[in-house]
């Protein structure tokens, strides 16, 4: 999957994973085969990843998510945008999120 993340599109968690919140950590557990590169692992985020993930719910385009994060974080727009796209690219390649259009 080499498609690039597009800021004008909307993304949501995939049905191929189960997202759990345990003791304040978000834990993503593969449900179907082929998520990630090894099957016997689950996934979690750093603090920043968690903040972004909580907004990826299929309700608004990514550019709106970036704007919300810019309002919340004191970070240069270019850097923040790059980080969000980097994270979503990784999630998309792992089939943890899907493109809702």
């Amino acid at each position, binding site marked *: 999957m080499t498609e690039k993340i597009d800021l004008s599109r909307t993304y949501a968690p995939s049905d191929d994973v189960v997202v*759990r919140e*345990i*003791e304040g950590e978000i*834990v993503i*557990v593969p449900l179907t085969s082929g998520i990630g590169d090894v099957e*016997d692992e*689950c996934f979690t985020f750093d603090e920043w990843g968690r903040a972004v993930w909580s907004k990826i719910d299929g309700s608004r385009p990514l550019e709106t998510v970036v704007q919300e994060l810019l309002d919340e974080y004191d970070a240069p727009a270019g850097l923040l945008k790059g980080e969000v796209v980097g994270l979503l690219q990784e999630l998309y390649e*792992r089939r943890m999120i899907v493109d809702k259009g």
Partner: protein
Amino acid sequence: MSAQAYVRKVRSGESGLWKSAKPALTRLDIELTERCNNDCLHCAVNLPAGDIEARGSEWTAERWKTLLTEAAGLGCLVVRLTGGEPLLRADFEEIYLHARRLGLRVMLFTNATLITPRLARLLKDVPPLEAVEVSVYGLTKETCEAVTRVSGSFAACRRGLGLLGENGVAFTVKGAVLPPTSREADALEAWAAGLPGHAGRPAFAMLFDLRSRRDEAAKKNKAIAGLRQGGDEFVSFARRHGDGAVDEWRDFCARSAGGRGDRLFNCLPMGSSAAVDPYGRLQYCLGLRHPGTVYDLAAGSMREAVTKFLPRLRETRAADPAYLERCGRCFLKGLCEQCPAKSWAEHGTLDTPVEYFCGIAHAQAVAAGLLDWGEKAWTVRDGSERAKRRK
């Protein structure tokens, strides 16, 4: 913000997963049934597959699903589905899928004889995320069925393994060192290594437990005890590929030296795990069925069991003078299998030392150079120092 990898891959058993408190429950063992379609010589659990009374008392899929949901709510990450033979239950798929949809990883323990093409496909499409553990008691029809005592079980097991392999489902085989199979260990390892889908190295059961129900079926105990290997056999089996195992015993002992005092529960990973029998009774582990250590989930809740009942149980103290005199001071606690479940199966108590496991631990310690032949571990005055002894 970090420019490093955003998504961290972790093994669910990794302690590094939790930055703050650990969940109240991380692992749950569920014995879906005590019934089995095999009747293995050494089995500490099985009832006949058609046992109507046992079957009628087993929890329904609905009850298991409710319990699994409760367990996931407490933070549980891994559930082991075992038996008896868990695939004897017609509702196995329903229970399995529910666990996986909750985001639980599933350790399935099976003899593989009841694996169908449909189940293998399900395990392919919705993988358990842990290698399926398959008991393979014999490399030929003759040896296998001398252990399982069921005609046709060899072919059925091979068919099941084939289905797992064809579907790319990861599995590990486990053997047992029994009179019919004792010469097959190396061949079984070599065979397993060549199986498509096989992960890791086979483990072998040798130190057989007596029947944990201590009921009618305990008549079988004499036969089970007769199958056990002695300390010397155990050590030479462990050494068959070199001294790696003996080095591990030594290191392990050095890390865990120090007597048990009057503590009964020394089992390490038990901090946040629990087991439930087929009838909804929560136990510290699957072998410990002493009535005083069992919590009836039908009359309470999982949360209460893991946050109140088990922590209280863990504080239970030993009273048996032999335990206090021996195990209480013994520096081999890291090697020895002595625990309340073993005392229960052998003696019907929680704290009577089990001579068989004591003998095995002593044989290991002698092989590791930690004890002289005939020396008793509990008479060693400074166990921590002794545990560092090198040959």
